[in-house]
């Protein structure tokens, strides 16, 4: 019997969904709403110096990589199914595009984080 690749993608989907469910709302509020508009947090919270230092720290690096890539894998899995739900049944092609997008995003995130250095 041919082995299914579903467990791999479902694990990534589950991990991303869990991470988004646990801390997603706080992250969106901080990076997208409060800090850019100078509300609540210190104005330099997301300054270049602070963010660069955070991305150079190994824990910060892992965190940023996990958030970006797992969110992408989570979304890719659901969007592939969503496209099917709307009547496009070329499952393999759709998954190639959606998982491909997540893979490209993961590689780009890794490349940027490695480029930032340690």
């Amino acid at each position: 019997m041919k082995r299914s690749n579903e467990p791999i993608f479902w694990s990534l989907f589950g991990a991303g969904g869990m991470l988004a469910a646990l801390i997603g709302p706080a992250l969106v509020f901080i990076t997208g709403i409060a800090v850019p508009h100078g509300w609540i947090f210190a104005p330099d919270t997301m300054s270049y110096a602070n963010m660069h230092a955070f991305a150079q720290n190994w824990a910060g690096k892992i965190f940023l990589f996990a958030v970006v890539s797992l969110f992408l894998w989570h979304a890719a899995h659901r969007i592939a199914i969503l496209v099917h739900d709307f009547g496009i049944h070329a499952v393999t092609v759709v998954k190639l595009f959606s998982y491909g997008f997540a893979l490209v995003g993961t590689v780009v995130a890794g490349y940027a984080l490695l480029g930032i250095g340690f």
Partner: protein
Amino acid sequence: MSNRRPYVRSMDGWWKRDAYFMRYMAREVTAIFVAAYAVILLAGLVRLNQGEAAFNGWLQYLKTPWMLVFHLIVLATFVYHTWSWFKIMPKTMPIMFVGGKRVQPGTITGTGLAAAVVACLAVLFIVGGMHS
């Protein structure tokens, strides 16, 4: 053969037929916003790697009213994602027993939501305490 045209019921708008399907669709559609948010963060990482001027450009872009409105919508969908994620968790996780008794769906959902509230508050406090 070619003259035979069997009736096939249209599946268009199938998810509008039932409140259960509507909730399913609302939950799945949050993924589009999760992807959009991830792409915004990814752009920030790429800009961070390119240097200070590039990163400041990204930060300036986040300050535009459009991005504020967009992030408010994203925030609403993330909150819905959190709620729906733990709402379906009793069905997505293996059946759990504690002391020989099956853990009730409400307990699983409630524990998950409580964990999310604690995790979100922890993130807010950690970031708030970082540079003050």
